[in-house]
């Protein structure tokens, strides 16, 4: 078997294989995120379309969404994006403790965002009497889109917890840590989707 110009066959084979496999997985994962973006875009299109067909938005009898709390909750989620970024940076520089702290902070902030979302849902349902199926296109689009996003955050929190346990168990090394890159990509994706959802639901 030719091994190219690599001196140590075994060593060379593993690293070349890792590099090529990593590239495949990276592209595949990014394409998966692209298709997820399309999924969100379709629902966003549906929301904007329904909103556009109605004479008034929000429909009569429904109050505007509370911008203040949403801004607070958004900052919680955006903050988790920053901590995730620094978690990966720390890992790249071999600072494990710093990495673990940042990752735990990310998980906590993500969970806090979910709690905030739960608080907002409860508020809407109990005080404003807005529900998924009983409030026309408003409830349908708002709860479907934010619920879908919340589900992605939930999956992300679980995913990051698994990554934390895996990295404690020594699955990743300083050179080979594609799982962490993928986790960071996913978490950033979840953040960035929220930028769009926050803008279209609360700001316009």
């Amino acid at each position, binding site marked *: *078997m*030719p*091994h*190219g110009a*690599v001196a140590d*066959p075994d060593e*060379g*084979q593993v*690293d*070349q*294989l890792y*590099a*090529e*496999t990593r*590239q*495949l997985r990276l*592209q*595949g994962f990014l*394409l*998966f995120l*692209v*298709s*997820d973006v*399309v*999924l969100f*875009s*379709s*629902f966003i*299109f*549906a929301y904007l*379309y*329904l909103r556009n*067909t*109605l004479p008034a938005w929000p*429909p009569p009898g429904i109050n505007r969404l509370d911008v203040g709390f949403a801004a607070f909750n958004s900052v919680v989620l955006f903050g988790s994006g920053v901590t995730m970024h620094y978690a990966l940076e720390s890992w790249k520089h071999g600072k494990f403790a710093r990495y673990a702290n940042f990752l735990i902070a990310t998980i906590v902030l993500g969970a806090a965002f979910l709690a905030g979302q739960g608080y907002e849902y409860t508020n809407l349902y109990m005080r404003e009497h807005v529900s*998924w*199926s009983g409030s*026309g*296109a*408003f*409830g*349908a*689009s708002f*709860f*479907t889109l934010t619920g879908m996003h919340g589900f992605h955050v939930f999956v992300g929190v679980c995913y990051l917890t698994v990554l934390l346990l895996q990295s404690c168990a020594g699955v990743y090394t300083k050179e080979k840590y594609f799982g962490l890159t993928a986790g960071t990509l996913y978490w950033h994706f979840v953040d960035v989707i929220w930028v769009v959802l926050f803008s279209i639901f609360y700001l316009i």
Partner: protein
Amino acid sequence: MAVQAAHAGGGIADHIHPEPQGFIRRYVFSIDHKIIGIQYMITGFVFFILSGLLAETIRVQLMNHAGGFVSNDTYNEVYTVHGSAMVWLVIIPIVTGGFGNFVMPLQIGARDVAFPWLNMLSFWMFPVAGLLLFSSFLVGAPVAGWTEYPPISLEGGVGTSMWCAAIFLIGVSSTLTGINFIVTIMQMRAPGMTFTRMPLFVWAQLATAPLSMVATTALAAALAALFIERQFGVPFYDPTKGGSPVLWQHMFWFYSHPAVYIMVLPVFGIVSEILPTFSRKPIFGYKMIAFSSMAIALVGFMVWAHHMFTSGLAPYLQLPFMILTYVVAVPTGVKIFSWLATLWGGKIHLTTAMLFALGFLALFTLGGITGIFLAAIPYDLHIHGTYFVVGHFHYVLVGGSLTGIFAGIYYWFPKMSGRMMNETLGKWNFALFFIGFNGTFLPMHWLGILGMPRWVPQYDPQFEFWNRFASVSSFVMTFGILLFFVNVIWSLRNGKKAGANPWGARTLEWQLPSPPHYYNFKHIPNVYGLPYDFSLPLPYKGLDEELTDSPAPVPAGSH
């Protein structure tokens, strides 16, 4: 960092898994792209037979203007499941999952697709989705036509929800296959195979994969919304609760127009392989055929509302959609004329595969031209929802895609099985199919112009003659297709041994034994040029040992 030299040695190309032993891992839950491709085809043809029977039910019902073969409700179920199954369970899986899986990795000189396990997962979603769709007959199948427009699709039993789930599942499968193919084609080509040296079938798959990925996900959103509206009463489409039925039409056609290109672009690729091989001439306009596939894929995303000219779209929106639809005809025309120029002056061998490819050229062109009719707003207003539309899309999907699928099977069957198909039976198959097809669907055009609406179980007596003509012709076509299955089964046992390259074709898969080994290539070859220059020596190096008895490559540590 990114590794530029994809096959410099020690990488994926030299990482060979040991061949699995045992029937289950080898033929059922296989991760080998060749087996998965054949699995897709077999499953697809099983569903083809089932939905073909539904089609014949339709034709028998329409033999008499008063109907009477099945009840009106059953008739609605029959045409709905027929359309859905033919699109999602037959043509799309066979042309992407089937041909794409079997042929594409061989043609680019790879050992497998990028994610073999994902490939297996994609495949196994497909039969599950099919069973879900067909079992909806047990509880009351969907009745709103394959387009499932609300508000009709919001009514009715659990069958429509099963339809949603089935199509969602096949959509996920299609999306994952698209991702898999894009990464495979981008990253796993043999050294020296630049983009402009790829076979045209690979180009066609590269144009199709983003469509399967992006458009199908948009459909998934529409289906999810329909499902939760049906199951939980969440108003997206119901106008009485603040939804909009036109929203479904937008989301559905944003998928389903690109879906036409998902169904036909791979077939363009198949035809682009067959025509030069059997004309013994380099393909005319290689780059133009390749790039026009990409152009069709791109413009295909911007034309969906031409299905909705009668849905109350604002006139200033209708006009751009009409013009963009005409724009699609330009790259399609580039392809058609390139194929004709490939034939021109060639030494044409009229094998069955070539006959089907030529049949494709004629029938698809007719289907494309009626598409131009339909894209014209004034004409569409007259013809919308009539049998003209039915005739049009059957010319595209049966005359185009299905004829191309037959061409591809006659062409690659020797590579898949190691045996030739029977040419005499094949020519009968082609003749009966071609005559029966035209007899069935050509009269539908004038029935439509005269005003016969689609999706009706009874109709005005004045249309009875041509409906009977179509029905009788459809029996001829069905008999022709029956000969195809007879031919496949007969040839699997009794066909002549094919050898490596029975057609004298030049793409990489024909330089390997038939059927190819599990690991495809003993050594990954180097590529030096286009595969279509019939007067030149083969543009590959490193293939000398493929047809000899030299030992198989050693599997690198199994894991």
